């Protein structure tokens, strides 16, 4: 399996990662080597094997649906790269 520049461009777009045009090909080669490495799993017999969902034998705990936290707006916003009043500011989304 080899990842051509077009595939790399598609994955990078899905991952919202800017990749320079001249990097698409070398990156594709690097990624292809890794995909080639993990491809060996195709040879493992996994018929009737359940995919792992939890590595330890524990039931997912349940709790009451109660508010236990909150009222920390300023803390939440404190690290915003850009804010207006008590909102995160981003480039215009709707014209």
């Amino acid at each position, binding site marked *: 399996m080899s990842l051509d520049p077009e595939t790399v461009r598609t994955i990078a777009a899905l991952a919202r990662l800017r990749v320079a045009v001249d990097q698409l090909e070398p990156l594709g080669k690097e990624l292809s080597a*890794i995909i080639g490495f993990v491809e060996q799993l195709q040879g493992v017999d996994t018929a009737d094997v359940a995919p792992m969902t939890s590595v*330890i034998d524990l039931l997912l705990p349940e709790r009451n649906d109660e508010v236990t936290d909150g009222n920390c707006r300023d803390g939440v916003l404190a690290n*915003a790269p850009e804010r207006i009043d008590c909102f995160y500011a981003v480039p215009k989304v709707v014209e």
Partner: protein
Amino acid sequence: MTLAEASQQLQARALSAVELTRAHLDAMASRRSLNAFITETPELALERAAEADARRAQGAALGPLDGIPIAIKDLFCTEGVLTTAASHILDGFRPPYESTVTAKLKAQGAVMLGKTNLDEFAMGSSNITSYYGPVKNPWGPVDGKDLVPGGSSGGSAAAVAAGLCLAATGTDTGGSIRQPASFCGIVGIKPTYGRCSRWGIVAFASSLDQAGAMARTVRDAAMLLQGMVGHDPRDSTSAPVPVPDFTAALGQDIRGLKIGIPREYRIEGMAAEIDALWRQGCAWLEDAGATTVEISLPHTRHALPTYYIIAPAEASSNLARYDGVRFGLRVPGASLDEMYQNTRGEGFGAEVRRRILIGTYVLSAGYYDAYYLKAQKVRTLIANDFRDAFRSVDVILTPTAPSDAFAIGERLDDPIMMYLNDVFTVPTSLAGLPGISVPGGLSKRGLPLGLQVIGRPFDEEAVLRIAAVIERCAGFSGQPRG
């Protein structure tokens, strides 16, 4: 001085926490060239040390960790203190909250000296992917070349080995505590998945990430670990199981215990000195009355490819949160989408980018079943191998890493060569089991080599008990130069 000795001296009032802290801050200042810390917190440390002394003066000391100076891997969120994950994308991030593990340590009086360097987002085995530059192994240089401390908890390992702190926290996803412990000649324990809360630890691969302790002796590692573990309702994967007294396991008789030696770990081309150390480890344990048994973990060779599907898949999902909107770096763009792309394109380093792309690929439509689901099935087989083996043995002994520390700049061309560092540690992580690396001896080049002990789920006690015997037999007193 060990953590245990320092704790006793504090209790005996032979030493104050402020004196102890100041000595460590001085050591840190004199070894800045190691680049072990991303952020030093001397004022905070002295303040907490003074509080510890005040408590002790009033007879209200909090326990064995009260006043003990430690370092924190910069992957744990610390309230008001810069937390970077060694990534450009978290520029300036000061969490408004404290991770559960560091909050516990703080509540027990431990004194944070600073935040240690690591591979970016804990992705690496050499500490060279840090945005803040590589860490130097205090055992180097060799032949004029600086050595890596291993990774990803490389800053913690270097700080502990160089005596810049009494112990340090680490995190381990595929070997990130154990491999650097081996490279730096210290003890590193990754407990069972679920022992430590992951709340407030910057996430890499959530089904694998686990915090643990790094220190110069097994006892010290057990003492720090004791302060880190326990159920946390804020992490649904943290285990509501009783926590034993880990130090009580040390020094206990190991006669009659069965030690598994997995034949699949005798990999082709393994360095003779690694094999020799492994045999030596078996001999020590047999002399102490244990029995070694050859076992088979047949799916071992599939562990690395499984890991390099699952870990990047989880990482690509976890790292979606870094978008330039809520915290960290923002690189402007004409549209929201462009802003995302620019921020992430500039904020992530090469290795993180590679893993995000691999993860996105294996999770994308048409490939999910072939890669991700397949890997989760093979992961079941790997975990079953261990479960079967533990029907007949109590612990498993292996080397920690296939080599001693390599030079900074080596093994960069081929990511897969780099991944092979974790060949002995990744299977344990995939199975969620506790593992420790304990120094066993020195390589021909005079560098430390570790042995790994793997235990049953939640049986850290057996792991520590065996490690303590290896530590005693090895008589490892190696000190890095400098």
